[in-house]
């Protein structure tokens, strides 16, 4: 278990920078504000943002596994 005798300090972990990617993608609205290419009749604007729900999880997963292995 952890050594509780000395206070553990929280060190910055570069892998956490991955968590910023969804912010860049979603707040950069002009990058996806269009109709084409549509997917199965759904305009790009809608399916692209829906796809980012999955991509958002995809960037959190490596961070999660790294953190769980290195507490």
């Amino acid at each position, binding site marked *: 278990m952890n050594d509780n005798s000395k*206070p553990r300090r929280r060190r910055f972990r570069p892998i956490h920078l991955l968590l910023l990617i969804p912010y860049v993608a*979603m707040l950069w609205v002009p990058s996806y*504000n269009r109709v084409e290419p549509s997917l199965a009749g759904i305009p790009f604007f809608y399916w692209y943002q829906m796809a980012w729900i999955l991509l958002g999880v995809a960037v959190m997963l490596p961070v999660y596994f790294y953190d*769980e292995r290195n507490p």
Partner: protein
Amino acid sequence: MNTVAVSIFVVLFLLVTVLGFVAARWRRGDLNDLNEWGLGGRRFGTIVTWFLLGGDLYTAYTFIAVPAVMFGAGASGFFAVPYTILVYPIVYAVYPRLWSVVQAKGYVTAADFVRGRFGNGTLALAVAITGIVATMPYIALQLVGMEVAIAGLGISMDVPVPGIGVVHDLPLLIAFVVLAVYTYSSGLRAPALIALVKDALLYVTVIAAVIIIPSELGGFGKIFAAADPKTLVLAPATATSLGQQAAYASLALGSTLALFLYPHAVTGLLSSSSRHVVRRNAVILPAYSFALGLIALLGTMAVAAGVKSMPQFAAGFKVFGNQYAVPALFLHSFPSWFVGIAFAAIAVGALVPAAIMSIACANLFTRNIYREYIDPNCKPAREAQVAKIVSLVVKLGALAFIVELPTTFAIQLQLLGGIIIIQTLPSVILGLYTNRLNPWALLVGWGCGIASGTWMAAQLAFKTSIYPIHLFGVTIPCYAALSSLALNIAVSVALSWVFNAVLRTPPSDATAEADYV
């Protein structure tokens, strides 16, 4: 009145009521302790927390209001999707720290943490009152969600009662009184258990809707072809204005920053059994965002189905406006037995957040007002008793609000709620990382944020929260919560620097760095 749909609806509602009372015995604990009543004993694992937070954050009102905006205004309503994408990286990175310090110090609310971190009761009081004020209209809006579902079933809201006369909103009254009673007796365990049923109903409804309705309407291509081409995507920027796209991004970001400051969200997170549960939930909660995205598209489907011009729905649209779009679409597309299930999903979807919100308000009042200012030496049993009574009062208040005042008033106040709750961000979130901010500076920053945010909303007559900012000859439409938060942070940081330089008072911090990891 649709007998089949109403029967199924009533049966599901009764099932949920039974669960609400049975919940008191679930993972049995001493319900005369605030930690047990108000946080479920902090024993919820990954799965229960997932259901609880899913039921808590993705409320009935969300499921009515988001497609209603899509129905009325098109693409701009879809901001709910990026909003719920951006929430989770923050939850992942920031909230395990809050969970740990709250656990280490035996806190119950975010205001408890602020009290300990900055050693200032006034700042904690400001955080607590902000939370309560922002949540009250949110509870009232859950009732609107339920009202739309009940009215959609064709159940008359004004029921003649022998001896009393016609009682307005009687079905709503009954539903809410039942909710109030089992929340009183079971605490947070009730919404946690009910959330399992709610989410099962919700997912079944959403999956059925996105399979059945597009096929009835001839596919997504035809659905989007029926939408107004002008609102299919956002209006592009012009030489003098960043336009709708800036509004969209600022709404998504501002809503993201506000969400987990709401007391009901904090309560849901703090009831989990470990910081690992918090992290795991940040990774698995986006499943609900997917459901939300599909529900948002129901608004576009309602346009394509042409429900607004159908005579049988004219009365509903007259009373509820665009909020009637999804109920009308369900009534139009589903067989009546499934309408019963879908409407039960909406109504039960209102019960879960309403219960958690009232519990969260009760926790805040008890810990940060009652124990701090009225009865500092109160025993744990007394604390729990006060919280239970406050949860009743809060719900009755919300009920009176909806029955007595026009719905638009609650919608406007909820809009203001997002603007004011975000002003607690410097104290709560920045506070998780530093104790060098001065509590009085934070209080002044909070005041500036509330004043400027409310002023902007008032300028817009509380109809919208997008306030145009003019900068270097360019108009930037920005969510008022975000711009007022920027002012708040600037004032808090600048004044902290001045106060610390002049007063040189050491931070009075009851927490240690080891409490956060």
